[in-house]
């Protein structure tokens, strides 16, 4: 008795279900289309952000290249640190048998008691 009742209900609902599925599919398609459009705007925005960041990075690279150029370093050394260019007279040639050790702590010198 019950099964016959449900059978009838399903039979009656079938046209509505068909229409529902068609409408739902159409809505889904439209929704997906809208979502795709929205996503592409996000991607476009992101690529613009990326490009902006890349531009900033490029600017930084140029700044770095300008900072490490020999002319700039020499100017800083001369103007701010009052350094001068090395001259030949400053170079000391040690003979092959002369050795120099430079230590900061006394404990590093063996036999300091001497």
């Amino acid at each position: 008795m019950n099964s016959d009742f449900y059978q009838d209900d399903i039979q009656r609902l079938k046209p509505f279900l068909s229409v529902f599925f068609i409408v739902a599919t159409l809505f889904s398609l439209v929704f997906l289309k809208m979502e795709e459009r929205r996503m592409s705007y996000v991607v476009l925005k992101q690529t613009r952000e990326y490009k902006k960041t890349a531009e900033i990075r490029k600017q930084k690279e140029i700044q770095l290249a300008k900072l490490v150029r020999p002319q700039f370093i020499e100017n800083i050394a001369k103007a701010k640190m009052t350094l001068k260019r090395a001259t030949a007279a400053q170079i000391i040639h040690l003979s092959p048998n002369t050795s120099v050790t430079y230590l900061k702590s006394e404990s590093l010198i063996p036999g300091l008691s001497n």
Partner: protein
Amino acid sequence: MKNKIISLFIGIAFLWGALALRAAYLQFLPNEKLNTLQARQFQTVVTLPSRRGNIIDINGKDLAMSSPAYSIYADPKVIVNKKQFVKTVSQILGEPAAMIARKISDSKKRFVWIDRLVNASTTEKLKEQNIRGLGFVEEWRRIYPNDHLLSTSLGFIGKEGQGLEGIELLYDKDLKGENKKVSLRKDARGRPLVQDGTVFTETPQGKDIQLTIDSDLQYFVETELQQALKNHQAEAAYAVVLDAKTSAIRAIASLPDFDLNKPEKSNSGFRRNKTVTDTYEPGSTLKTFILAEALEKNIYKANSKIFCENGNFKIGKRVIHEAEKSHSQGLITVSEVLAYSSNIGTSKIALKLGDAALRESLLRFGFGQKSGLDLPGEAKGIILGLPWADHLLANVSFGQGMTASPLQMANAYASIANGGILNRPYIIQSITDIETNQKTENKPTEIRRVVSEETAQQMRMMLAGVTSGKGSGLLARVPGYIVGGKTGTAQKVKTNGRGYIPGGYIGSFTGFIPANDPQYVIYVALDHPKKGYYGSQVAAPLFASIASYAVRKDGVAPEILAEKDLSQVPSAQTNLNQKQIEKYSLDDLKNEKQILTAAPELKNLSVREVLQKVHQQDIKIKFLGSGQVSKTWPEAGEALNQDRQMKVFLKE
């Protein structure tokens, strides 16, 4: 009624059917016109400009780079309020309003450039204003972070991004790369609908070029040349530094030069790399190759004697003189002919060689022809065809009556320095394709053997003699290293008419360091100096300063031999070989030294002063602390131990 309804239904169904068929026809059957219309409506083509490749030095330091920039254009026809347009744009760009107003004055025009290669931040400000009729084209701007450095070799590019000079011109195709065109769907407002972000982020790139140049050395060379130019009031200065073994160019300069970031403001004559494009009579630096040929052909030996006619040598109706009366010589060896730069001695050698052999040898050393260098505008130089009259033969032997470029001269010396092989000079180390990561290395290329290894070694020793004793190149010496080289003082030929410019000289020095195992070949010249003009006066000290920097920068160990006054070393004037010479000088030095047996007085001296005092004393010295010497062990005057150790205590 029912029939009417059926008829209406059929009619409507037919109409719908026809509509559906038409729609299917339009949708599914190919139609070029409709496809074009659709593409125009929904598709957009975005051009991604290729980033011009970087140029870097041998250590990876940037010499030329590209920065994103925008070129701004206007469509005068669609500008609504021209007054407002001019005001806003001129304010942001910082350009005169009148100039912008003039550009957009013709309303019939649909495209005018407002400004080219504007930086990104300024462009952003303009974009924010959302001005109707204003458009932006994405481009790349070339930046040369070192301004003047290597300017005549690097060259520069034009507003359209095309190479105009130097490496930028010669390697334009590699550096430029290819623009990428991307076809995308667009929305109603014309915005591209992007599914794949990498379409925009993966910028097309040109190839990166690495040079053989060491930018630190290049800077040093340029500043030294600038200083010499000023000190000697010269018109121009040239320098070439080559790797002695491979002929790779480590530095190349032609001054005056120009600011690469403002090439349009410079004199066009300064943009040429004259070390490559210009040739002139080299003067005495050419004598080296005449003597090398004579040794190679076994016509003379290094110690063969030549009578130098006491300064006056008659060839036909002409008389050959030495450069100075005081340079007049009698009977001297071939080595001394080179060391004293005797015109008469070299002329006699050349006459014995003959014109054909001399010409052939000069061609073999690379004169009178292009070397195949990877820089544009290389000059060949002039070597006249045969036959040569005796006086021309004599003139050529001391560097007149033929021309050579500084690079040719340096490269010919490199063949002597490296054991007799002429290599192709090159400035490009490698070219890297950034997109595929493929690197093409430029390898040293041997052109030909020009002299035997023995002749080359003998010539190196003879050239070392030029910077010793009474040699003409004493000022080229570098303490701690043996230097070989030759001075040259060439008269400048008149550009209009025959003969030479009165008082016009090019003083040069070409040499290598260290002479016992050459690492660098260096050519320096000052063009038309007003204060002094001999190569030995103006160019030799310049050579010394550049050579000293180059070897120390490279960590080339100094030789004890050079500490000795080379005038007492037998040098090239005997048949001793190099090892014997080194032994002689080392022993000689040891004998001369006064070895201390007691500790020296070092109190209150700085570390530098202590080292200056003990550097020849074979003492093993240990410093402790910093500042000046407070005490020593052993104390001053006390005997040094057998192991000759000293401890020096420093105090601030």
